[in-house]
């Protein structure tokens, strides 16, 4: 069943058209990742889906009573706002202590309830955001660049956690990421966005699509995601050699996430 769907969605940000004619839908249990260069409208799409920006044309429909868990791209808690982790998890609804402790334990940051939000490390902060997002047992978990500021092992562990949460909560997961290689292997479906949908489908289909290659090329980040794909295409020998040293590691990274 479709939880959120967009039909012919066009979004204006000021006088700029951030998105045009986007058709999108996500169903229970799916992990969908949106990739795209900077300014390609990834965040605009997420914000339109939660209803934070209006559709200039087209429509967004949400399933009735849909519970959304949202992890924003950045949460700038100013130095003037005192806020403990416990209090943060109680926003906007009051939570009981056992609920809070359970959510923190689930996100693997148990025992932080009485810390100030401003005193957390980057990894702890992201996990607390995740803990808050899943407190309501959401039908749809939305993450906007949720691994920003995490190192590679940190973000791999974070995505493993998300796949695990999907299995246990049976929710849908929609995320935006720039870490193509890690994210794509954990996704059921990838949408490549650049103002409009360039291509979409299973990770390996998208990775081999010419539109995707036009945006991300076949080097660096792209190559890591494409590794298996590159392997099956013999015409690109040169490429394989260039990355010869890294091949084992490349192969490992996506496997680890699964």
């Amino acid at each position: 069943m479709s939880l959120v769907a967009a039909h012919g969605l066009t979004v204006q940000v000021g006088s700029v058209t951030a998105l045009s004619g986007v058709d999108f839908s996500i169903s229970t249990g799916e992990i969908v990742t949106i990739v795209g260069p900077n300014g390609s409208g990834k965040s605009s799409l997420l914000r339109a889906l939660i209803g934070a920006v209006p559709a200039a044309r087209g429509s967004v429909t949400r399933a009735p009573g849909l519970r959304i868990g949202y992890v924003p791209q950045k949460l700038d808690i100013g130095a003037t706002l005192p806020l403990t982790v416990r209090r943060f998890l109680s926003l906007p609804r009051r939570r009981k202590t056992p609920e809070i402790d359970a959510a923190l334990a689930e996100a693997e940051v148990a025992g932080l309830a009485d810390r100030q939000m401003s005193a957390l490390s980057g990894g702890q902060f992201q996990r607390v955001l995740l803990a808050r997002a899943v407190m309501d047992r959401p039908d749809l978990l939305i993450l906007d660049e949720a691994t920003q500021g995490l190192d590679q092992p940190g973000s791999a562990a974070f995505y493993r956690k998300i796949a695990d949460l999907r299995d246990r909560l049976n929710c849908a997961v929609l995320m935006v990421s720039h870490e193509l290689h890690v994210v794509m292997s954990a996704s059921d479906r990838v949408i490549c966005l650049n103002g409009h949908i360039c291509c979409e489908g299973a990770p390996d289909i998208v990775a081999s699509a010419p539109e995707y290659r036009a945006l991300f090329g076949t080097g660096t980040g792209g190559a890591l995601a494409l590794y298996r794909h590159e392997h099956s295409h013999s015409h690109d020998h040169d490429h394989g050699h260039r990355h010869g040293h890294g091949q084992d590691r490349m192969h490992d990274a996506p496997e680890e996430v699964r």
Partner: protein
Amino acid sequence: MLDDFLVRAALAGVGVAIAAAPLGCFVVWRRMAYFGEATAHAAILGVALSLSLSMSIFAGTLVAAMGMALAVSALSQRSYAMDTLLGVMAHSSLALGLVAVSLLDGVRVDLMSFLFGDILAVSRGDLAVIWGGALAVTLLVFWRWSALLTATLNPDLATAAGIDPRREQLILTLALAVTVAVAIKVVGVLLIGAMLVIPAASARPFSRTPEGMAGLAILLGAGAALGGLELSYLYDTPTGPTIVCVLAVCFALANLGSAMLSARRS
């Protein structure tokens, strides 16, 4: 008891402090200090409006402050940086208000009492307006507290949780306008910003939660109002500015105290 002007002044000061302090916390958290200032300065325009239409000062200042707040919110979508826009609007409305008051025929107005407050001249009627307004603001902020706090943290986070951040912004704006309108008699348009910001800023070093900060800000604000009144009575100084001076001393002591505490800990 209410026959004594000092008792009325004390009640008025405490009433304003109770309304202004929690609201002031949001002003500080949302970095809206200048916004509060602009809203307050527009109130002098409201005074001119009230006098020329011979309606109550409270109604006139409320309308002007609300109009200003809405105008700034609408204009902030445009191309100017917020602080530039507020700098233009705050001082223009103050100047325009002063000019408008001077143009009024046949009315002699004690401008100083509007600019710096006239807490010793608070009547029973004023007291009713101040406490009515303060109570309304306090209830409004208390009722919306969680939603306001969520929207302050992050508008998208609030939207995803089913809260409309624009609505919460409007509620804050309305509360701010009411506070300005009731505080004008106590501290005057030039010093209302101090009643909003300084108690909250002084409470920050000793607070671990938003609620704790708001509670402490109320205590500090009310204490400063009473202390300032006492001092101005003893030394025959203008009351509104004396209250703000006491607040400034609170702020200095709070920062000194927290610096000493953290030095001892380390």
